[in-house]
């Protein structure tokens, strides 16, 4: 897979379809990949990787790249294509400047889960059917994919690319019963006190590193209100519990109807806060109240907060209050 | 009767009936529609007005309270939701709840019966006339 992608990227660079390639490269460790820009065949040969650790959603990086001009080749996994479409819909990126290669994905590995399986000193990872072969300094280990899949991939909503110019790997389908709202429902079934305790427990870990916001493909504001001293709500480090509540509620609200549920926020959170559960609550509510809507599915669709029905549900009727 | 006692009596009638006598605009629709008008000394609109004035004793002593048919016509047709029948019932109840003040006593019944009279009539009369 990685080699096919690399070969094709080199071809497209050579024939002038694009002048640079947005992909992944290894960081300090093999499992710690970062997005990277490749301008030459040599750079690609040396640095380009694609494997079970290539988790980052590259679409957000196109906002900056589009401003720099030229023509960009980007590799997008199915979930990334939703973000891509959403960014196109919001005029944040220009479709005509980008050549999209869709790459098949059947889930990415979670390094924490690998470590839990006793796998350490990782140097490389390879997919073989439904297993990963992980090379370590202690030799190769084989694990079942399902045992080490990243949280968001366990409930993967779609293996279908919403957009691409060409596809590498097999085309997949939307997964209707992915169970991604199971945890939301579980929380909804709790009492308010239990819910409060749950959220207090997880949100109190927040250190306001802003990683969730910085990685989020829906958070591409020129300047975030939380960074803008003129907004009146700028905050830096979390001083107390309100800070986290405020920041995360408003962030979730700002991306409501726009969040594609790519799961990057939770993936990058150093404190493992399940931030995607906030977004999924909004997605679920939108589906329930206003009809099923998947951001990024159709760039021409009107977002749920940009339209209304005369007989919409009243705020007082929404959700259930458990005593 | 002392003023306080009178007020208590009035409050009881108003609470038991649930009627807001101040809503009455004196249109007289209740009295216009009442099928038992001829049998009554005080008529439905007077009931409302007299309760408003606190003249419960006069009403309680009047044979009118035993003549209301509970046909709900005045309630149905009152444009102001005053519902005089409820007042009449409350006054009647206040009378029969007082000890020994039943309007109808069991020993009086046999004389009133005939072969075709349905139970319903007797039960109703008991409900309306005695405790």
């Amino acid at each position: 897979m990685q080699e096919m992608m690399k070969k094709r990227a080199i071809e497209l660079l050579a024939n002038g379809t694009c002048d640079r390639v947005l992909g992944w490269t290894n960081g300090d460790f093999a499992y710690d990949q970062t997005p990277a820009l490749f301008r030459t065949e040599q750079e690609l040969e040396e640095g380009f990787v694609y494997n079970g650790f290539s988790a980052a959603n590259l679409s957000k990086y196109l906002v900056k790249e589009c401003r720099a001009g030229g023509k960009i080749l980007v590799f997008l996994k199915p979930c990334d294509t939703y973000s891509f479409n959403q960014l196109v819909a919001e005029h944040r990126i220009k479709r005509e400047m980008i050549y999209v290669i869709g790459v098949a994905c059947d889930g990415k590995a979670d390094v924490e889960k690998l470590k839990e399986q006793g796998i350490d000193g990782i140097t490389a990872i390879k997919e073989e059917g439904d297993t990963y072969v992980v090379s370590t300094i202690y030799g190769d280990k084989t694990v079942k994919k399902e045992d080490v899949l990243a949280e968001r991939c366990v409930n993967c909503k779609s293996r279908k690319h919403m957009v691409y110019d060409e596809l590498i790997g097999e085309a997949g389908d939307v997964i209707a019963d992915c169970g991604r709202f199971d945890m939301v429902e579980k929380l909804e079934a709790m009492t308010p006190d239990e819910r409060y305790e749950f959220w207090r427990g997880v949100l109190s870990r927040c250190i306001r590193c802003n990683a969730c916001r910085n990685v989020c493909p829906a958070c591409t504001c020129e300047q975030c209100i939380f960074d803008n001293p003129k907004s009146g709500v700028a905050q830096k480090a979390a001083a107390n519990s309100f800070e986290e509540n405020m920041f995360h509620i408003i962030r979730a609200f700002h991306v409501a109807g726009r969040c594609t549920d790519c799961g990057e926020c939770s993936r990058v959170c150093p404190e493992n806060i399940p931030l995607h559960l906030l977004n999924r609550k909004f997605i679920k509510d939108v589906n329930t109240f206003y009809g099923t809507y998947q951001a990024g599915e159709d760039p021409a669709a009107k977002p749920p907060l940009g339209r209304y029905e005369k007989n919409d549900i009243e705020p007082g009727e929404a959700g259930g209050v458990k005593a | 009767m002392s003023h306080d006692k009178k007020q208590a009596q009035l409050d009881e009638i108003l609470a038991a009936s649930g009627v807001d006598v101040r809503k009455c605009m004196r249109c007289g629709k209740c009295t216009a529609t009442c099928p038992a008008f001829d049998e009554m000394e005080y008529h439905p609109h007077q009931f409302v007005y007299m309760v408003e004035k606190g003249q419960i004793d006069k009403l309680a002593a009047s044979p009118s309270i035993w003549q209301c048919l509970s046909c709900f016509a005045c309630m149905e047709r009152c444009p102001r939701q005053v519902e005089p029948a409820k007042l009449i019932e409350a006054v009647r109840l206040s009378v029969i709840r007082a000890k020994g003040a039943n309007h109808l006593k069991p020993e009086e019944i046999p004389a009133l019966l005939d072969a075709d009279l349905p139970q319903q009539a007797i039960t109703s009369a008991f409900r309306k006339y005695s405790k």
Partner: protein
Amino acid sequence: MKFSYYPGCTLKTKAKDLDRYARAACEALGVDLAELPEWQCCGAVYTMAKDEIASKLSSVRALASARDLGTDLVTLCSACHNVIKQVNNDMRTNADIALRANNYLKLDTPYTGETNVLHFLEMLRDRVGFDALKAKVTNPLTGRKIGAYYGCLLLRPSKVMAMDDAENPTIIEDFIRAIGATPVVYGMRNECCGGYVTLENKGSAKKRSSAVLESAKSKGADTVVTACPLCLYNLKKNGGTDGVDVVYFTELLAEALGVK
């Protein structure tokens, strides 16, 4: 089609016909009327006072047992219907009455007005359907001119009974049409017959009942139908108009269905 059925005391004694013909008709119509086990007298009149709880309890018991059986509750006698529907409404809308009644009764599940109460006529109109009834009529009462006598209890208070327009009802007229007869609309059809006051004031009952029958007669009715034993009694006993027959509507229903 299965319903719980509340006949009421009068239907077990003086008004056996009202009940008997209803049951026969239901059999012919394929309606299963299951008499509630252990029902008690509804009290015959609805007590309007907000502080009257005890007199509502027997109705609540009937309502709760229909609820527990998972069926709608059908009533037939106008008086029972009036009492039970009004009590049901209290239980649904008056929290104070509901609380106090439930405190008395100590039911396994407190009753808060869940049961749907239907008059037999409503069941015919809304569940069986007058068209379906018409199709099952074997002996249409063609040529009969019949006046519907609603009286007061069937329709009032209309907000609670919610059965038909209280001032210009059509349900019995439609019923009369369904059994092949011609309905006669007359002005006094929803006025009182004199009610229970007949017990001590025959004069009042005479005035009311004769006014009703004269009104029906002047419009050409040969028969007047009712759903209320007390109305039937008053009209017959005190109406004093020759040439107008007074019968229960169920009797004509049974006749039309050929099961009389």
